[in-house]
Structures are given as C-alpha cells and as structure tokens.
C-alpha cells in the first residue's frame, strides 16, 4: 500500500473503531438509563411488571400525605390521576414545591405489595408549573378530582 492510502485506511479504521465503541456504549446505556413514563391508571391496570424502573406522574392526592407521624425521613402519599390512586413511599428530602393537590413526578418501581417505591421525587421550580408528565396523566384519565 502506498503511504497516503495507508494513512487514509488508518484514519477510517480509527473512525470505525470509535463509532463501534460509541454505538455499543450508547445501546448499553440506553438500556440502563431510560425511564418510561406511566400514569396511575396504567399502573393500576398492571401494565408495568413488578420491579421494573419507571416514572410515574400525577397529583399528590389531597389528604393522603403522611410525614411527621412516620419514622425518620419516610414519606407516604397517594399519586393520583383522579381515576386511580397509587400508594407511594419515599425516604429523604422532599422538593421545595411538593404539596398536596399539586403535580408530582417520581422515579422508582412497584414492589411486591403494589406500593411504588420512589427513589427520587422530581423538583418543580415554579409554583404554576405542572410537569408535562402530570398534565399528560390528567388528560389520559379524563377525570377531574373536584368532588
């Protein structure tokens, strides 16, 4: 092979190797890092397998929040889309704007007792802001929480 051709082949080789590593990493990581979003109704219908990580969105049901009476930093509340309620437990610090009757998004999984174990409650940064996920959940259920 002539020098310039060898040079070009080497560069192509690097690029191919680089992209192969990258694609491999990306596919592996997408598998790990992707969180599918489900609404409380979908969860109640049993769409999500137990133990699988996902993201739930909805509202914190009014009157369902328990904090002070529980041990340590444990929190319990109901995530609702006004059609179905899913019990959620979480250990740790709640975001500043976490309130009853307002939108909530949580990452976690459903345990064998049908309780959503949240590893993270997402913070919202504007009191008017309802996350897109919460809005989608409300719209999907078509129900309203007003008595």
């Amino acid at each position: 092979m002539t020098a310039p051709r060898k040079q070009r082949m080497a560069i192509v080789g690097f690029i191919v190797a680089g992209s192969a590593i990258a694609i491999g990493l990306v596919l592996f990581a997408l598998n790990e890092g992707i969180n599918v979003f489900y609404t409380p109704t979908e969860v109640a219908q049993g769409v999500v397998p137990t133990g699988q990580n996902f993201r739930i969105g909805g509202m914190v049901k009014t009157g369902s929040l328990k904090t002070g009476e529980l041990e340590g930093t444990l929190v319990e509340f109901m995530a609702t889309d006004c059609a179905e309620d899913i019990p959620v437990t979480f250990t740790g610090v709640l975001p500043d704007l976490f309130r009853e009757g307002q939108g909530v998004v949580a990452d976690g999984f459903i345990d064998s007792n049908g309780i959503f174990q949240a590893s993270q409650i997402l913070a919202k940064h504007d009191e008017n802001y309802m996350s897109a996920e919460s809005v989608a959940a409300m719209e999907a259920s078509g129900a309203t929480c007003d008595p």
Partner: protein
Amino acid sequence: MIPELGNFSLILAFCLASLLVIIPMAGAITNNQLWMSLSRPLSTGIWVFMALSFACLAYAFLNDDFSVNYVARNSNSLLPDRYKFAAVWGGHEGSLLLWVLILACWSYAVSLFSKNLPMDILARVLSVMGIIIVAFLLFMLLTSNPFERTLLNTPLDGGDLNPLLQDFGLIVHPPFLYMGYVGFSVAFAFAIAALLSGRLDAAWARWTRPWTNAAWAFLSIGIALGSWWAYYELGWGGWWFWDPVENVSFMPWLVGTALIHSLAVTEKRGVFKSWTVLLAIAAFSLSLLGAFIVRSGVLTSVHAFAVDPERGMVLLTIMLIVIGSSLLLYAIRAPVVKGSASYTLTSREVFLLINNIILVVATAAVLLGTLYPLIHEAIYGEANRVSIGPPYFNTVFVPLMGLLAFVLGIGTFSRWKRTSVAYLKQQLSKILIASLAFGIIIPVIVTSEFNISAIVAVVLALWIVFSIAKDIFDKTSNKETFIKGLKALSLSYLGMQFAHFGMAVTILGVCLTSHYSVERDVRLAPGESEIIGSYEFVFEGATLQQGPNYQADRAVIQVLRNGEDYITLEPEKRLYFATGAVQTEAGIDVGLFRDLFTALGDERGDGSWVVRIHYKPFVLWIWLGALFMAFGGVLAITDKRYRSKKIISDSKETTKVKANRSTKPELVAQS
C-alpha cells in the same frame, strides 16, 4: 421615554446590521475597497446602539418602571438593586438582548483586533456576524421585545424575579456563558468567510485560534459557574444533573475543545482543513440549538423560559436556515481544500485526531440522550413519554473521558509527522509505572478501602500530571536554571499544559466526590446530632427570620470537629412574599479538600426537620479545574505568535530547533 429610546436604538442597531450584511459582502465580491472598509464603522455603530439599548433596559429596572411589561414580570420594588440589575437578563426577552449585545461585542472586538487581517476577509467575517445579528434582532423586535409597555392599568408593583435567580450566580453565570457560546460565532464567521473566499489555509487557522480560545475559556468558566450555582443554590447537594439545558451548554464546549485541537493541526501542518471548518460550523450550530431548546420549552428543564411555541418555531427556522445554508456552502466548497502533508500512524496529528473523534462521539452521545425523549415522543405519540436519566450519560460519557485522559498523556510526547513507538515507550514507561503505583497506593492508604473506580480516576489524573511535569522538565533541561528554561517556553505551550492540568484536577474532583461523598438525609429534632467521620453536626433548631423580600426558617447547625467547636452552618428555607415560592439556601463550609454541605428539607412536626448533611471530598476541584482550563486558554491567546507576522517566522525557527533536539533521543532509542 427611556424605554422608547432603548427600543429606538434597537431598531437602529437592526438597520446598521442590515447594512453590515449587504455592503461589505458586496464589496468583497466586487472588490470595492470603500464598501469593504465600511465593515469596521458599522460594527462599532451596532455595538454602540446595542449597549445604549441595554443601558435603557437596565435603567428601567433600576427605577422600577413597571409600565414596561418585561420589568413588571421580572422585578419587584423590594428587590435589592444588584438583583434588579441582574434581572435584566432574568427572563426571555432581556436575556435575548444580552445575547445580541454580546454578539455585537464580539464583532466589535473582531473589528478592533484585526489590523493584520486582509480587508476582504474582515469584510466577509463581519458580514456573516451581521447576518446572525440581523436574524436575532428581527426575532427580538417581532416576537420578544423587552421594551413593550402597558400604559393603561400599569401595575403598582412587579411580579418579582424567580427566587431561584435571586443570587450572585445570576449576576455572573449568564454573561460568562453567553460570552462563551456566542463567542463561537467568531470561529463560525471565519469558517464561512474562508469557504466563501476559498482561502482555507494556515493563516486562516492562525486568525481563528485566539478567538476560539477566548470563547472556549469564557464557556468553561460559564459552565463551571452554573454548576457551582446549582450546587449551592438548589440544595440537592449535586453539581451536575445532565439536565437538557446543562447538556446544550456542554455540547458546544465539547465540540469547541475538539475545534481548538483540530485548529492546532491545521495551523501547524495544514491538514484536517475541511474537518476543522466542519467543527467550527458545528460548535456554533450547537450554540443555536441551545438557544432553541432553552427558549422554546420543547424539553422541560430547570432553566426553561416561559413556554411559547411561536417563538420556538421562529428560533427553529433561524437555526435551520443558518445550519442548512452553512452546511450547503460546506458541501459545495470544502472538497476543494485538500491537505497535502503526510504523517504516520503514531504522529501528533493522529493523536489529535483521536482526541477529536472521542470528543465528537461524546458530543453525539450527549446530543442523542438530550433529544431522545423528543424523538421517542414523535414516533410513539405524546402519551408514551420517556426520560433519559444520569445513568445513560454516565455510562457513555465516563469511559470516553477516561480514554481521552489516557490519549492525552501519550499525545503530550508525540511529535508532528512521525514519532517512533520506541520513543513513546521510552518516554512513557516510567510515567505509567509511577502513576499506577501512586494511583493505587494513595487512595488505598488514605481511605483504607479498595474502590476500583476511584483508583482508575487517580491513576489517570496522575498519568496526565506526570506527563505534563516530565515534558516541562525535558523542555527546560537545556537551560542553566529551571526558571530560565520556563521563561523560554512559549505562552501557548504553557497555556496548553495549564489546561491539561485543569483536566486532571477536574477528573479528580468529579470522581473523588462521586465515590467518597458521604450523604445523609436525616430527621433531626433540636439537640439531636449526626456524625460523619470526625465531624459531628448538632441541630439546634430552626427559627423564623425576616429578609428584605422573604421570610426564612433558618436552622442553626453547630459543627464539631473531634469534639471541639469548629463552625456554625445556617441553612435556610425561604418563602418569597411576591410569588409565594419556597427556596432552599444551603449552608456550606468550603474547603480545598472537602466541603461540609447542609440543607434544610421539610419540617416534620415537633420542631424536627429533615436535614441534608453531606461530606463532599474534593468537590471544589471540579470548578478549580475549569478555572485552570480557562486560564490556559487565556494564556495561549497572549502568545506573541498572534501579534505580528515577523515574530511568527521566529517562532517557527525555534520549533525547528526543538524538533531537531527531540529527534536525538529517538535515534538513541532506535539504535
């Protein structure tokens, strides 16, 4: 009256920018000197009117002129003056004004520091920048004018600045960040000008380099400030969340880093020209993508401005036109420019190419992760939402950066054209052994545990530091004293080493704080305490305090070290009157080797609170490294090489001498 003056200067700036697009460009095509020479005064004029317009908006904020819509929405009479000023860029319209002002600053700077530039190149560069100014001013005047008024029913008081933004961070973070990613417009304009004129040579690379370095240095500081701000303000104890808007500021930085390295090859060796041009286009395109994502609200994020699909569409159009036409121009003109110099597989050219591939792959992975939720939604419909979390980004990004750090060490010793493998082995074997030995022993002794990820990080950081040290000692060994040798080194070389050292510091900061942080979220009643290592955190209860425009629950946390009084931390939870928003203020004791981080969670009855108590080793190093990198970039700009032509030929001779000297050990090693 003043806001109208601001609006009027905005329109004048728009008119001047339109002239800047047409006249100098036409002059460059028809070779009309007079028309081309108008580019300088026009850029100056745009800058003057943009500054005037900005000053008018600032005046409106400082004087509580709530008849201006934008002021009414983003300020409040109770707001302290420094935040009233910073609130100028606290919302969509004003931050766009800052964006364009900074763009005007950059083009004014180009017109000032361009004595050595041929007139036709300067005319084209400033014209291209004019196009971007015109597009953004048009966008601002039509959809987001900050000077719009409500003359009837003027509100008595403003709606207040988002409490999250009422912080020192707002004063410094956006200007630096914008200086950074708007700064890449200069490299972009130079690239387009080079494609238009067909003169894509070493001189082009030399003109572009200082501007790219400057933008990159600003962006490094801007991103670091943002990360630091998030760390102490959001109260989560994290410093990077792979939030879409963090990602869109990070991608131009990654591509900008690749561009800096690729420009070095193009200037010194005249190869990779088309690739370098493509990177220059990509860096600025990613900045535009950032503007689009932040301001259109297509991705929910901490930073998103008020969601407005119409604005998003206009920005998307601007972005697609700029990117599309520059790529089209690239497709037509780039194949003409070809490199001729040859190099072998283990030359500096190839190591820099590997650097570029890694950085571009990393950018692509971040881009994919950022846009994936959008793509998924487009394919599967709105009900099927997904989110991409930090695990994805960490899994892809961390190994790539590890690889980059490894190549960095080898690249330091590689020479242009060809470097024998034996020479590299001889240079690197001791460094490899030393970094492995110290990298394994130090973490194990200090922490008495075997954490493989932390060890890899320390080994890589030492690998970089030892390579830098050895290279500097080698290069100074021919002078009588080390200091004399150091003085003989070029500033751009020292800048490079500073920036690389910064990378090692950041790697250490990121990895050590990730692996050795102790994070406790505990519920404490007054008098109770939590112990982490030799520190005891005693919670002494929270009391209600009054601030200028908020009231706060302020906790007193007495920290004892080895049983003795050390410091009192006072994290707060603030309630802002105007908006009713709640905001956490962390209480942090900053140290070079560790931070003590405390933040107040929620009250859980009987005076007990959930408190975040984190012990974060080396967290400061993350931002310290970024400072080193930025300083390296600035140092490289001050290199004499960029000043005049005469000195350039001198420095070429010195590199020749250096190259001759360096071939000697190579021959020895081969024989």
